[in-house]
C-alpha cells in the first residue's frame, strides 16, 4: 500500500504514474480502500465501500496497463460517487433511511462512462438525505450521521454532496462525483477545501441519478485541483440517449485564452457590488487577498449588479414543485417520518401546495432569466464571488445559529442554478478554527473551459489546493 504522498496526488499525476507503471492500480485501490475503512467513519462520509467490485476493476486495469492497452487519464484511478448514483450490485440509499436497501440493476450513465474509461469505483459516499429536498436545517440530516470536514471534525462538511467533499479532502478517494441542484457541489467543496465543478445543466447525463428537480439537477466532479475537474469532466460529459436533457454540444477539456482575438488581451473578471459586506471577516479578508491574485492575470471589473428578476423565488418554486412530484409516493406513504432530521420529516408537505400556475410562471420567467443572465456576462469572461459567506458551521447547532449576522448572496446562487450556468469552487485560505474558505468563478452556459482556465491560473499562483488536512486516528 502507498502512503500519503501517493494518496494525495492529483488525478493527473496519478494517471501519469499509472501509465508509466510506477504505481499499481491494485495497490492504489487497496490504499484507498484501507483509508476509507480507517477514516471514513471518523468523518461520516461513507455509505458503502465497494471493495469487491473495486478489486475486480483494479485487477482488470492492471492487466490492461501492463499489456500496454492504456485507456486514458482515468485508467486505474479509484473514485467515489455520491450515493444518489446507481451502481450495479450495491445499495443506492439517496442518504435516506427509507431507501437504505434500494438497489438498481444497472450503473448510472456517469458510472458506466467512468468504468469504460478504466476508473475504479471504491465507495458510495454520504449525502444529505434526498439531496436537501426536505429543507433540513442542521448537519445531522443523513442516516449515516452528520458528515464533517477533515479540516476540523467538529464542523460540517457542507452538503448535499457531503461525503464526496470529505472523502476527496482526506484522500480517501482520488476524486468523486457529486450533484448540485442549488449549491450542493460548491458548498461541500468549500467546506472541505477542495475544487468542485458544477457543469452547465445538461452537460453530464443524469440517467441513474436520484431526481430532486429534473430541470435543475447537475452532476459534476469534485477533485483536489481545478485541472482534475476538467480531466474528469472530459470523460463524463456528452449526449446520452437515456437522458433527453443531456446536451448534444461536444465537450473537450482544453486550455482556453481570453476571447476577443486581440493579442495579449487579459481576462476580464466581474465582481458584484458589495460582494463581502455581509460575509464573515475571515471570508472577507481571504476574498480580498484572492482578488489581488486574480488581478495579476485579469482585469477586475467591479460594482456589477445582477438583473433585477426574482431568481430566488423562481428557483425555489421550481425545485419545490418538481420535488413534490418526484417524492409524492414517499410523502403520501408517510415515509418522510423515517428521515433523520426532524424538520425533514415535515419539510415536503408545503411543496405539495405549490400551484400549477405558479410553477408555470416560474418556468416562463426562467426563459427571461436565462437571457438576462447571459447578457450579464457581456464584457466579462466570468464572475468572481466568495463561495460561502461564512466558514463551515458546527455540527451540533442549527445552521442559522452557526454564524449569526452574516448572509450569503442567495440571489446569485439561485440565478446561476436556475440559468444552468457552470461554476468552479476552489479553496482560497482558512478562517477561524482551521476552517477552509473558498471562491467561485461563474460563467455563461457551456463555458466550463473558461472557469477552469481561470481557476487553473489561480491555482498556479497559490498553494491552497495542495494543503492536506491533519488526519488523526
Amino acid at each position, binding site marked *: 500500500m502507498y502512503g500519503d504522498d501517493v494518496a494525495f496526488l492529483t488525478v493527473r499525476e496519478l494517471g501519469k504514474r499509472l501509465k508509466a507503471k510506477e504505481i499499481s492500480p491494485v495497490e492504489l485501490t487497496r490504499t484507498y480502500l484501507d483509508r476509507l475503512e480507517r477514516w471514513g467513519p471518523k468523518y461520516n462520509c461513507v455509505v458503502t465501500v465497494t471493495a469487491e467490485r473495486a478489486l475486480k476493476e483494479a485487477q482488470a486495469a492492471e492487466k490492461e496497463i501492463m499489456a500496454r492497452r492504456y485507456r486514458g487519464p482515468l485508467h486505474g484511478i479509484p473514485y467515489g460517487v455520491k450515493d444518489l448514483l446507481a451502481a450495479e450490485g450495491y445499495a443506492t440509499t439517496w442518504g435516506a433511511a427509507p431507501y437504505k436497501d434500494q438497489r438498481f440493476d444497472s450503473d448510472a450513465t456517469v458510472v458506466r462512462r467512468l468504468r469504460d474509461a478504466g476508473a475504479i469505483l471504491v465507495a458510495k459516499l454520504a449525502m444529505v438525505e434526498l439531496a436537501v429536498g426536505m429543507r433540513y436545517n*442542521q448537519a445531522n440530516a443523513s442516516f449515516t450521521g452528520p458528515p464533517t470536514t477533515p479540516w476540523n471534525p467538529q464542523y460540517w462538511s457542507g452538503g448535499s454532496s457531503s461525503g464526496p467533499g470529505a472523502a476527496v479532502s482526506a484522500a480517501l478517494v482520488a476524486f468523486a462525483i457529486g450533484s448540485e441542484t442549488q449549491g450542493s457541489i460548491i458548498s461541500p467543496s468549500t467546506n472541505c477545501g477542495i475544487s468542485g465543478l458544477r457543469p452547465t445543466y445538461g452537460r453530464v447525463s443524469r440517467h441513474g441519478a436520484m431526481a430532486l428537480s429534473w430541470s435543475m439537477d447537475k452532476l459534476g466532479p469534485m477533485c483536489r485541483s481545478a485541472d482534475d475537474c476538467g480531466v474528469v469532466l472530459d470523460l463524463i460529459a456528452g449526449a446520452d440517449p437515456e437522458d433527453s436533457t443531456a446536451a448534444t454540444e461536444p465537450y473537450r477539456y482544453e486550455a482556453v485564452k481570453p476571447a476577443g482575438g486581440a493579442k495579449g488581451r487579459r481576462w476580464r473578471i466581474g465582481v458584484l457590488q458589495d460582494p463581502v459586506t455581509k460575509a464573515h471577516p475571515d471570508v472577507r479578508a481571504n476574498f480580498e487577498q484572492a482578488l489581488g491574485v486574480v488581478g495579476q492575470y485579469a482585469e477586475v471589473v467591479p460594482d456589477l449588479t445582477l438583473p433585477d428578476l*426574482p431568481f430566488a*423565488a423562481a428557483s425555489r*418554486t421550481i425545485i419545490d414543485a418538481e420535488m413534490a412530484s418526484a417524492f409524492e409516493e414517499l410523502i403520501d406513504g408517510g415515509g418522510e417520518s423515517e428521515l433523520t432530521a426532524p424538520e425533514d420529516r415535515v*419539510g415536503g408537505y*408545503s411543496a405539495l*401546495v405549490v400551484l400549477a400556475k405558479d410553477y408555470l*410562471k416560474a418556468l*416562463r420567467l426562467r426563459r427571461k432569466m436565462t437571457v438576462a443572465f447571459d447578457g450579464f456576462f457581456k464584457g466579462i469572461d466570468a464572475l468572481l464571488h466568495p463561495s460561502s459567506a461564512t466558514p463551515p458551521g458546527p455540527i451540533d447547532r442549527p445552521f442559522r445559529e452557526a454564524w449569526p449576522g452574516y448572509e450569503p448572496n442567495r440571489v446569485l446562487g439561485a440565478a446561476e442554478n436556475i440559468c444552468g450556468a457552470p461554476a468552479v469552487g476552489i479553496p482560497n485560505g482558512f478562517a477561524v478554527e482551521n476552517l477552509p474558505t473558498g471562491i467561485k468563478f461563474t460563467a455563461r452556459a457551456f463555458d466550463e473551459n473558461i472557469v477552469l482556465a481561470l481557476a487553473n491560473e489561480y491555482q498556479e499562483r497559490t498553494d491552497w489546493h495542495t494543503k492536506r488536512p491533519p488526519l488523526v486516528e
Partner: protein
Amino acid sequence: MTLTRRDFARSVAVAAVAPLAVVPAGGLEAKAAPAQQTQTPPEARALGEWIRARYGDRLTANQFFAVVDDIGGVVQRAAQLGQVKLANGDEPDFAFRPYRGPR
C-alpha cells in the same frame, strides 16, 4: 404569533425527549387557529387546511405549525413571481419532445 422555523427547531428538541403526540384534526384546529390568524397569510392557512385534510392524522400540532409557516413562504414566493408581467406569448422554458419509438 406565527411559529417560525427556529421555534420549530426548538420545539422538536423538546419533542426529542418526549413521545410525539399525534393531534387529531379537531384538537389541532383548536390549538392552531388563534395563533395563525394573526400573521399567517390567509392563502397559507387555506392551503394548510388542504394538508390537514389529507395528512392531519400524522402531524403533531407543532409539525402542522411548521408546515403552515413553510406554506407562508410558498405564498410569498408566488406573490414575488406575480409582480413580473409577462406577455401572452412568453412560453414556459421546458422542452417537450414527441416520442416516436422504433418499429
